[in-house]
């Protein structure tokens, strides 16, 4: 098995949309999308700057709100609560386990119990492994995908929106080349057949709108495709 280790300092070329940046800064997205977005932010100074500016807008909007009336004794309640409290302890710096060939940034790292290569991958198709990540909300699924170097994916369309972040290796389709840190946003208008780069396995974090529960014979037949 081969792994391509990308230059640590390289910066992504495919970014988040304004819409996703606003929704993330406003706190309007669920855990699944936020996980993919925040992990991109760890790898992308440009989008971090954009989110900071959008949070400034949030701060300005908060300032502009007409103050609501507080409950009687509100301040005293809070003062009593913080009364005996010692100053916050400084945070402990977390180091990624040494020896991992692929650096997984936070917040994704906190969701995984092992390095990318040591995760218990579930084989979906030849050359394609999957590892499911539990996130809140019934409407989305979050997974890691591992695609063997040089493997083409089955051609597929999407139900609803799909958000993908490349963690290692890369892939190409008619829309371009995606490598570590790049975000790929697809919706049901995109029909594509990505091919993993030949010089190393491709690892991606992806979240999709959960497929409709199909029942009956046809549903079961369709499922391996729909699930992907």
């Amino acid at each position: 098995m081969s792994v391509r280790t990308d230059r640590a300092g390289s910066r992504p070329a495919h970014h988040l949309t304004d819409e996703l940046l606003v929704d993330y800064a406003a706190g309007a997205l669920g855990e699944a999308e936020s996980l993919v977005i925040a992990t991109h932010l760890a790898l992308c100074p440009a989008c971090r700057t954009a989110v900071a500016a959008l949070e400034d807008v949030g701060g300005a909007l908060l300032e502009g709100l007409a103050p609501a009336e507080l409950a009687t004794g509100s301040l005293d309640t809070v003062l009593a609560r913080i009364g005996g409290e010692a100053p916050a302890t400084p945070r402990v710096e977390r180091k990624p386990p040494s020896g991992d060939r692929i650096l997984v940034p936070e917040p994704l790292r906190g969701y995984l119990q092992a390095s990318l290569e040591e995760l218990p991958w579930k084989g979906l198709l030849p050359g394609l492994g999957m590892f499911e990540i539990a996130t809140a909300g019934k409407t989305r699924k979050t997974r890691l995908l591992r695609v063997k170097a040089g493997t083409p994916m089955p051609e597929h369309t999407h139900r609803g929106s799909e958000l993908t972040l490349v963690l290692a290796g890369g892939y190409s389709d008619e829309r371009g080349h995606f490598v570590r840190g790049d975000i790929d946003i697809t919706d049901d208008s995109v029909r594509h057949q990505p091919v993993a780069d030949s010089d190393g396995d491709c690892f991606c974090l992806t979240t999709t709108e959960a497929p409709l529960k199909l029942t009956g014979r046809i549903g079961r037949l369709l499922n391996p495709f729909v699930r992907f």
Partner: protein
Amino acid sequence: MVVAVGARRDRQAFAALFAHFAPRIKAYLMRSGCEATAAEEVAQEAMVTLWRRAETYDPRQASASTWVFTIARNKRIDMVRRERRPEFDPADPALVPEPDAPADRVAEAAQEATIVRAALDRLPAEQQEMLRLAYFEDMPHSAIAEACDLPLGTVKSRIRLALARLRKTVKEE
């Protein structure tokens, strides 16, 4: 003032911050659909968090109101929606750093907040309202479109327009 709370555990400074921010955090929660009692509880929780984290507040990174906004937003996700809010860790060794060392922004962050605020006040009323919807209603673009009975494309372009105008005004200041 946040800095005074962080460095000296200054209760008077905290009381002043409380008087300014707690009623606005409560208004923010009520705007996103909370009952007064629940909004009060979240506002108090947010102020406790402000006290606990004051030491980590970095005035070079954000103005006080921006920082408080992020605390209130995260409390809403945690207490009202009961979900995790995944965020990057600025101290993560795996974080890809800025191309250049960040410039000293102390004066800038506070100044910028005033400028953004003034620019916001000068936006046409319907654009201001669009931004309030995007930030306060706890709904992504797609849900706003549904609630307002507008095509998603229209909501996207209105919000983008409002932000573009805001950026332009901020740049001209």
